[in-house]
């Protein structure tokens, strides 16, 4: 939000991107204000903190999804990758031949090695995406939906459709549950904050970050300007899969379980927060910061709905309506500006 004020100062020349981010911050403020009025105990520091920390996993996913969306591509495989890496990290780590229960036996690798291998597999899924999209030029939405099923399917085979959660070494649960000294803030949340900051720096200050925008703004012109479009897309897909992999490892560690149907629908959530944050699939437009704002908007809505003890149907519908209105509002706001 600090940067928004900075760009707000240069109001006459504000770019569409900052305009939209600012617009969504405004929307966020309005929704937050309404929630504070309607929901008991909503306005308190503890709750505001919850709102930011609740969605750490979606925000981490959102980073990769946002980058790809800016280049004009989708990544719908992230939910599947979370499930796969979680399950793999557990399976690699479980003691070998410790029980007659098949699901209690694993490969007995040390935790660090298990995590490394699981992340490698995640990147592998990203590489499949990259191959199809950057090389064969297959529409990203279709291929990533396919790899989402593939990743989740492999996770299901390893867990026989359920989960693996026994005979794990103690250090398995460490990363996911440990909090920062003296606080309740989890390492996962810290990872999220660090990644968002890194992503912001990457996006705004590095050459590779700039190229994401170039590809999205005009992929042919990028090619003719010497950007290796295919290679760049490929690394973004692998990055997105890696981020999903990290999320998968953290979630598996937090619950000490590798669940095959974990993170179902997260790819849609990640897409929705990016859209709410003003990232445009038309390409070349949007930012991690906007995605973060989008995530907070959704988090406020969810949190308020829980606080009001609304029925799940209402919660789902309200989320649907909010996204619908936000997308329409963005479209009109942008059209008016032109």
């Amino acid at each position: 939000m600090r940067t928004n004020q900075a760009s707000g100062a240069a109001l006459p020349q504000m770019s569409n991107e900052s305009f939209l981010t600012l617009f969504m911050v405004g929307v966020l403020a309005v929704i937050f204000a309404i929630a504070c009025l309607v929901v008991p105990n909503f306005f308190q520091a503890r709750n505001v903190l919850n709102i930011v920390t609740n969605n750490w996993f979606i925000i981490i996913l959102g980073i990769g999804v946002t980058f790809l969306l800016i280049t004009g591509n989708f990544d719908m495989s992230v939910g599947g990758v979370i499930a796969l890496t979680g399950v793999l990290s557990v399976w690699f780590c479980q003691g070998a031949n410790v029980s007659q229960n098949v699901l209690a036996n694993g490969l007995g690798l040390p935790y660090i090695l298990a995590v490394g291998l699981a992340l490698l597999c995640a990147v592998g899924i990203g590489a499949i995406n990259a191959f199809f999209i950057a090389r064969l030029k297959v529409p990203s939405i279709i291929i990533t939906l396919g790899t989402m099923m593939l990743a989740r399917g492999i996770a299901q085979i390893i867990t026989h459709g359920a989960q693996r959660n026994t005979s794990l070494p103690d250090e398995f649960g460490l990363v996911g549950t440990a909090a920062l000294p003296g606080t309740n803030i989890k390492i996962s949340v810290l990872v999220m904050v660090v990644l968002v900051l890194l992503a912001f720096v990457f996006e705004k200050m590095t050459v590779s970050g700039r190229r994401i925008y170039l590809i999205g703004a005009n992929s042919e012109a990028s090619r003719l300007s010497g950007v290796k479009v295919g290679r760049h897309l490929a690394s973004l897909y692998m990055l997105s899969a890696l981020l999903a992999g990290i999320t998968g490892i953290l979630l598996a560690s937090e619950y000490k379980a590798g669940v095959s149907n974990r993170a179902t629908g997260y790819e849609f959530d990640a897409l929705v927060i990016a859209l709410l944050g003003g990232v445009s699939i038309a390409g070349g437009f949007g930012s991690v910061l906007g995605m973060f704002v989008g995530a907070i908007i959704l988090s406020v809505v969810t949190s308020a709905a829980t606080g009001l003890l609304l029925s799940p149907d209402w919660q789902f519908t309200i989320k649907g309506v909010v996204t619908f209105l936000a997308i329409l509002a963005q479209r009109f706001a942008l059209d008016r500006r032109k």
Partner: protein
Amino acid sequence: MGPVAPQKAAWASKEQEGKTVSRTSQESVRGRLERSNALRANIKRVYIYVFLVLIVAIFSVAKLGQVEMFGRGHFLSPNSIVNLLRSAVPIMTLAGAFTLLMISGYIDLSVGSAMSLAAVVFALMIRSGASLPASIAGVLVMGIALGAINGFLVMKLRITPVIATLVTLNLYKGIALLIVPDGLSAIKGTAEAPMPAWINDYARKDVLLGLPWAFYVALLVIAALVILQRKTIIGKYAAAIGGNRTAAELSGISAVKMVWILYAAVGAFAALAGISRASYMSLGDPLSGDNMELDCIIAVLLGGTAFSGGEGSVAKTIVGALIIMCVTTGLMTVIPAYWQTVAKASVLLIAVILNHLLVRVKA
């Protein structure tokens, strides 16, 4: 600067040589290209059928040790075939209309949600005493409206199809969930408001060869769609818009209107699928259409419809839909249930690769 004149003379002779060489090489290249195109076209024409036959063949022999040929439980037993066709009704209905939309270069991810909503509304209407024709008419009108909303977002507000329909996916599903009262998972018969038993006549009762009305209605509308695609201007304009929108518009075709109509049609077909699902289950389940869009995409791609639009075939999509149903039901007792997702994903990836290899015929 460079010695221009002598060079020019050198070029002249070179030009002569070069021309003859490149001519012949160009011709041989062209010939090779033509032959490979012809081969590709031939494979493209039949591969979907071969695919279906292969799958049927594999599943037929898969359990031979356990069951008798054509005996109960065999993949090709009458009961199994009837069952497969009956459960394929919604996906066939949906994917048929979906194909036309994909041919014109657009996509609708909200079909599953629209189908759920239709199922819920249909069950609600029947339960509250509306007659069958009235309920069907009402739900169809609603389906058209849902499709038209998508059309409006995509064609008028120019929101990317994937995003617009992703948003309505959530919206329609939310509405369906809301209609179902708290504490219930679906609109179904309760003590105070019983569901008339005849609700499942449509999608359950055997009218001919063990198959219900819903199947024959689906067959009929699919036949209509096939004719629509092959013989009417709608099919032709859809292909023209998907192939080259500028050319179509310069020829006086209103792409906006046309695609809008197609979206509405997809909505109507989703409603029809919802009706048969509700009748089949005797209840309106707000989640009954979940993930249907994925199956639709797989079926359409298997059927050889181009990603980018311009060409495709409703008939082949239906074969694609049958393949999906074969995979889901045929695998049930052959391999463990938890292998199914990978099987389906593999079918999708195979479809994508085939599509990539076969659809693009190079000029």
